[in-house]
């Protein structure tokens, strides 16, 4: 099941990991993405820590870690094809994170709540 953050990230649980990307709404707001800097695999991060840089034709923005944990994988394909974030944001995942605690997804919005947020 998909969950969403107020920073327009989508979160998908897979096993004991969470896959993180950004929503179509976010990708449309950013405009054409031209560069993405991903965190190192194995890095331990705090919730709210800025760990991804996204540069669009308009501006630079950050993606934060939705929860505390360890980065277990990053989508290296995005470095060469940053435009994938615009073409198919639900498939263009950024990183996988293994949360430090269980049950952390419960506090995030479901799709209905997220759709209310973006109106």
């Amino acid at each position, binding site marked *: 099941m998909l969950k969403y953050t107020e920073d327009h990230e989508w979160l998908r649980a897979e096993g004991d990991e969470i896959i993180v990307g950004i929503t179509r709404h976010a990708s449309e707001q950013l*405009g*054409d993405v*031209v*560069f993405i800097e991903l965190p190192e695999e194995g890095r331990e991060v705090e919730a709210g820590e800025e760990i991804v840089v996204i*540069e669009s*034709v*308009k501006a*630079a923005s950050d993606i934060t870690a939705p929860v505390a944990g360890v980065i277990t994988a990053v989508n290296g394909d995005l*470095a060469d094809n940053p435009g994938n974030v*615009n073409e198919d944001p639900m498939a263009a995942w950024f990183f996988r994170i293994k949360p430090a605690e269980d049950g952390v997804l419960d506090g995030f919005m479901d799709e209905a709540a997220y759709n209310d947020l973006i109106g």
Partner: protein
Amino acid sequence: MTEELRRTGLYGLHLEHGARMVPFAGWEMPVQFKTGVMAEHLHTRAHAGLFDVSHMGQVLVHPRDGKPETAALALERLIPAAVLGLPEGRQRYGLFTNDQGGILDDLMFANRGDHYLLVVNAACAEQDIAHLQTLEDVDIRPVTDRGLIALQGPEAADVLARLVPAAAGMRFMDSRAFDWQGTELWISRSGYTGEDGFEISVPDDRLTEFARALLAHPEVAPIGLGARDSLRLEAGMPLYGHDMDETVTPSEAGLAWSIQKTRRGGGEREGGFPGAARILAELESGPARTRRGLRPESRAPIREGVDIFAGESGGDVIGTVSSGGFGPSVGGPIAMARLDPDIPDGATVYAELRGKRMAVAVTALPFVTPSYKR
């Protein structure tokens, strides 16, 4: 206090085309349309883009004694370029300077026979008009009943010729009046994209109709301010308030070429404009820094405000990015900064981005070759 944003005559048309509107220099302007900045940029380079530049100031300068040279000489008291000697029907680029030799604004001026037409930046228009009104011998008449459309790109001339056949005969920087279905258009063959194209002043009461007539052709798409910025950046053109301002001289801004020989040391009408002492001295000796191109080696854009260093660590800041972003036609990040002119093209300098030094090549400008019809 929040000031009410002004809307151009094309506001409704922008919304029809799905524009995302943003505040810009006191106006509500389209930053992009549905397809986005990248597609709009590439469309303009391949076909033709329609830009609403109605926010820019259009100003007529009439000589009180009816003699065109009176207006030319009056303008030369504020502008270092040669105004006198510009033939009727021609346009030239110029600057307003201040007593310190800094740049107050950049502008286009055109000789329209018995008077001059000036086009100035939106953000500076009010100040420019007040500045012009200090001149004696001329009447300053801001144009308040016309919008301005830029049609830019390799197919612009073909499209415009279908509406205004006579305009096809214009050369780069020609500026003339043409009839379109009983309405007078003021057209110049110029622009801010590095492409062939036109800037067309249209009376407000037919502005939307004229824009629709252009957009009816499949070659033409509406283009927002986002792509206008990336197009001018690739074309190596400076943007007022970013690549130059009241603290930057013409030589530092890389605009020494806009000061013709007659206004320089030893010229027929040497000096006589604000800041002449410093500006003329700098034309002789060369500035300590001047505007250069930058090409980052990585794909990460370096934007306005990013500091440039000579080495990979330590050292002093040798310049700061004044404009930068992604160049869709270049296919990578590009930027401009004022740097020591002795640094050779191709030299590597370093941009400090998020605490890391990134290698950047110093390059000549522009980043893309212009295709003007000279």
